[in-house]
């Protein structure tokens, strides 16, 4: 520790020794006590410290909007829904048996539709589309 290093510490971390690097704090305080202009070394840093302390207090409370935390917590659900080959509409999710049946019908409809030489969708595909409906996946945070 020397004067040059002490000045670097003060310029970097401020006048409050509690914020100085722990490993160097004791040596820096000892070096500070040997400086005849210690007050002058600390004053500029102290003024910035006071401003930062004030600003920290002013921005300490951040009110999060309703549903923000709930949205974050639901991320695993949202991601799993998006990974599914077949997205199940919300109204169908409470009916496990129908969900599986709907998935099977949609897959069958797709297979039939691709095999039969027709320009019109097959009945099976139409049924699958009707059951599929509109995706209602919620975005994270909504």
């Amino acid at each position, binding site marked *: 520790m020397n004067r040059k290093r002490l000045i670097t510490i003060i310029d970097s971390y401020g006048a409050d020794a509690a914020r100085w690097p722990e490993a160097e704090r004791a040596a820096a305080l000892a070096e500070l006590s040997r400086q005849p202009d210690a007050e002058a070394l600390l004053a500029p840093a102290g003024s910035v410290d006071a*401003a930062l302390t004030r600003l920290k207090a002013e921005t300490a409370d*951040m009110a999060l909007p309703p549903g923000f935390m709930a949205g974050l917590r639901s991320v695993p659900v949202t991601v799993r829904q998006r990974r599914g080959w077949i997205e199940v509409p919300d109204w169908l999710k409470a009916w496990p048996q129908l969900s599986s049946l709907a998935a099977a019908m949609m897959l069958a409809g797709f297979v039939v539709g691709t095999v039969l030489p027709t320009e019109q969708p097959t009945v099976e595909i139409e049924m699958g589309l009707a059951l599929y409906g509109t995706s209602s996946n919620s975005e994270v945070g909504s």
Partner: protein
Amino acid sequence: MARLMYLKGDMPYAQGSGAARGEEATDEALYERVAGGDAQAYRTLVDRHAGPQARYARRLLGNADDAQEVVQEAFLRVWREAGRWQAGQARFSTWLYKVVTNLCIDRKRRWRVLFTDAPPEETDDAPGADGQMMAAEQAAALQDCLQELAPRQKTAILLCYFEELSNREAAEIMGLTVEALESLLTRGRQRLRGLLAGRGIDKTDWYNESQETHHHYR
């Protein structure tokens, strides 16, 4: 509440269970469970870190809405990238700070917010009759000054002063040596002092307040 079904054979997670186990576990232990698909462990991490990270991002971006979007993206990555987590490599909190910091920096670049070392513009705020700004005006001026710092200077100050991280941890988050971090801190603090003076904030007040702080260490 309707139970949610997963057609790809995902195991439905247990809602509301394991809270006691989650509260006692370290972040790293929880994240290892998240890698195994433990949604409750994930939610414990959300409860611990989302609020502080939102506050940090807000200070870094200067905008609450942007900060919330950053945190949402960060925790989406927390869930998706859990499988790549290597125990013992880094602290979870350090990694999360790094993710949030980089997302904030990317957002700033995307919106082309420029920070220069040019002198601050003259403001229209005129001091009151007694030469002192009102407290609310001073607070707003302080926030403006912080937002005028160069992004890396501001990040260094936020991590060390506001988040109270050690210099080593802050340097790791920013991908710097401690010496480089200290250089950013020094330049950022010097710049801040100049901005405060340029805003007409009474330097005497700040100095007198600071005396009360560092007298404890004389």
